[in-house]
C-alpha cells in the first residue's frame, strides 16, 4: 500500500518538509545553484553560501528573539542536547558536578546525563507531577550548592505538556546554575522570547517544524555568557563550538522553515486547536478513554490517550491506515511501556494502552473525521477480543484478580 493512502497523525515524530522549504533547498545543491562551501573566503561561491547561511541564522534567531550570533548549527536537536549538556558540564566541572533533569526528558537528554554519571557527575532525575509537568518547586527542592546545570524540556514529546520556563529559569539564575531547554517540539507551536526568558541554552530541530532532517541548532547565550566545551573538533567552525563544513542546503531549509513558522504560527495554531477540540470531544465519547497529560497545560498539536482494556500495539495495528505512535512496550524492542507514562504514575496497563495522535499543518478535516470513525470501530473490535473488557463488563475489579504472570 502506498503511504499516500495512510492518514499521517504523527507530526510530533517528524513533519514533512514544506514544499516551499524544499524548493529553496534545491537552490543550494547543483552546479547552477549556490553549492559553495560557506567557509571558502577566496571566491564568490563561498561568499554566496555564507550569505545564505547567515540569512538562515537570522531567521532562526528571529523566531525565538535572540541574537543570530547566539545560534550554533548542529546536526539536529540530539546533537544540540549533547553539546549543551556535556559542553557545560565539562567546561564548568571545577565549579560543581551536580546536574538536575527530569524522568520525562527525551533520550537525547537522558543518555548524555547517563554518560556524565559515568564520568563522575551526579544527576538528579525529577518526577513530573501527575499531569506530566515539572514543577518549579521540584527544581527548587533539588538544587544543591554544587548544581551547575538544569536541563528541562519545554514541551514533552509524548504528552504535549508545557513546562514553565520563566519560573524554572528564575530559580536556576538565583542559584547560579545554567538552564538548558530542549525545545525540539516548541518552534512554530508556541511563542519563545529569549530576550526575556531566563534560559541559557536551548536546543532546536528543523524536522519537527517542516524543515529537513539532519539539521538543528543550539542557542548559546552571550550575555551573561555561557561557555561550552566542543564535542567535535576540526576547523573551528561555529566559533569553535561545532566544527565541520556547514551543510548549506540543510541550513537554508531550517532557516526557511523557521521563517514560515514565524509567519504562520498563528494560523497553524487556530486550525490545529480546532482539530484538537473536535478530536478530544469525539474520542472522549469512547468509554474508558483517558487523556495523559494535563489538558489545561499542553499544546493542542499533541494528544495522548489511553483506551483501557485495549493494548496499544494491537490498536496501532488495527489502525493500519493511520500513522500514529504508541507508548506501548510492544512497539519497541525493550518490552517496557513508555517511561514517560510510567513516570506520571499511570498504571502499567494504561501505559500499555496509550496512543499519541499529533496534528500538523497538512492535517485536513477529513483526516480527523476518518480517524475518529476508524478509531471507534477498532477500539470496539479489540474490546470484543479482550478478556479484560469481558471481565470489566462482568463487574470484576481487575485490581483484585490474581494474575498468572509469566
Amino acid at each position: 500500500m502506498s503511504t499516500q493512502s495512510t492518514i499521517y497523525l504523527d507530526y510530533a515524530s517528524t513533519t514533512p518538509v514544506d514544499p516551499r522549504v524544499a524548493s529553496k533547498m534545491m537552490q543550494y545543491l547543483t552546479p547552477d545553484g549556490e553549492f559553495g562551501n560557506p567557509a571558502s573566503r577566496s571566491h564568490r561561491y563561498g561568499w554566496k553560501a555564507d550569505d545564505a547561511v547567515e540569512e538562515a541564522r537570522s531567521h532562526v534567531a528571529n523566531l525565538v528573539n535572540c541574537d543570530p550570533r547566539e545560534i550554533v548549527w548542529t546536526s539536529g536537536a540530539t546533537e544540540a542536547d549533547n553539546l549543551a549538556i556535556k559542553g557545560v558540564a565539562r567546561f564548568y566541572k571545577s565549579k560543581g558536578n551536580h546536574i538536575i533533569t527530569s524522568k520525562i526528558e527525551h533520550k537525547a537528554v537522558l543518555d548524555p546525563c547517563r554518560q556524565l554519571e559515568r564520568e563522575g557527575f551526579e544527576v538528579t532525575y525529577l518526577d513530573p507531577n501527575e499531569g506530566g509537568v515539572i514543577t518549579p518547586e521540584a527544581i527548587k527542592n533539588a538544587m544543591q550548592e554544587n548544581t551547575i546545570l538544569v536541563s528541562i524540556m519545554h514541551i514533552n514529546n509524548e504528552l504535549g505538556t508545557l513546562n514553565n520556563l520563566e519560573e524554572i529559569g528564575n530559580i536556576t539564575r538565583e542559584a547560579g546554575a545554567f538552564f538548558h531547554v530542549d525545545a525540539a517540539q516548541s518552534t512554530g507551536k508556541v511563542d519563545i522570547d529569549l530576550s526575556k526568558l531566563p534560559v541559557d541554552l536551548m536546543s532546536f530541530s528543523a524536522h519537527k517544524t517542516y524543515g529537513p532532517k539532519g539539521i538543528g541548532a543550539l542557542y548559546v547565550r552571550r550575555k551573561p555568557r555561557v561557555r561550552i566545551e566542543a564535542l567535535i573538533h576540526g576547523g573551528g567552525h561555529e566559533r569553535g563550538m561545532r566544527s565541520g563544513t556547514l551543510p548549506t542546503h540543510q541550513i537554508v531549509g531550517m532557516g526557511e522553515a523557521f521563517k514560515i513558522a514565524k509567519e504562520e504560527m498563528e494560523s497553524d495554531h487556530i486550525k490545529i486547536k480546532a482539530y484538537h477540540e473536535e478530536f478530544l470531544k469525539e474520542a472522549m465519547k469512547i468509554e474508558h478513554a483517558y487523556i495523559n497529560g494535563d489538558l489545561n497545560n499542553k499544546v493542542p498539536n499533541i494528544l495522548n490517550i489511553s483506551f483501557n482494556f485495549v493494548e496499544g500495539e494491537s490498536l496501532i495495528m488495527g489502525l493500519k491506515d493511520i500513522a500514529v505512535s504508541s507508548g506501548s512496550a510492544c512497539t519497541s524492542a525493550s518490552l517496557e511501556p513508555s517511561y514517560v507514562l510510567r513516570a506520571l504514575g499511570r498504571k502499567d496497563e494504561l501505559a500499555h494502552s496509550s496512543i499519541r495522535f499529533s496534528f500538523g499543518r497538512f492535517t485536513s478535516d477529513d483526516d480527523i473525521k476518518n480517524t475518529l470513525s476508524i478509531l471507534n470501530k477498532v477500539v470496539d473490535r479489540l474490546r470484543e477480543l479482550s478478556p479484560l473488557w469481558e471481565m470489566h463488563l462482568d463487574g470484576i475489579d481487575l485490581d483484585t484478580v490474581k494474575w498468572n504472570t509469566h
Partner: protein
Amino acid sequence: MAYSKKVVDKFENTLENPQAFNVGRFDPKEENVGTGMVGAPACGDVMKLQIKCEPKGNTHIIKDVKFKTYGCGSAIASSSELVEMLIGKTLEEAKDIKNKEIVDALELPPIKIHCSVLAEDSIKQAIEDYESKQ
C-alpha cells in the same frame, strides 16, 4: 514493524471476523468446558482460552474452542493460530503442541516468542481445568 505477512493477516482477519475465528466465551461452569487464562495486564498481554470436549473411546476430543486475548498483534495472532490447531485433537495431542509450532506457522520475530509461550501455557491450563472436572 518486523512482522511477517502471516501475523498481519491472521491479526486482521481475526479482528475483521471474530466469530469465524472462534472469538467468544463458553460458560466456564459447564462440565465439558476447560478454561485457561495466562498473562497479566501489567505485562501487556492476557490470553483466555476455553475448550469444549467430549469423550471418545478412552480419551477426550476437543470439539470447539473459544478465546479472547488482550495483547499486541502477535499475541492475538498466536492465540488465533493455536485455536485452529486445537479443534478435533485429542487432549493428548493438544498437550503435545509446542510453542515452536506457532512460531514457525506465523514466522514470529524473536522478540515475540513469548507470545507463543503464552499460547502454549494457555492450552495446558485449559486442559488441566477440564481434567480436574472429569
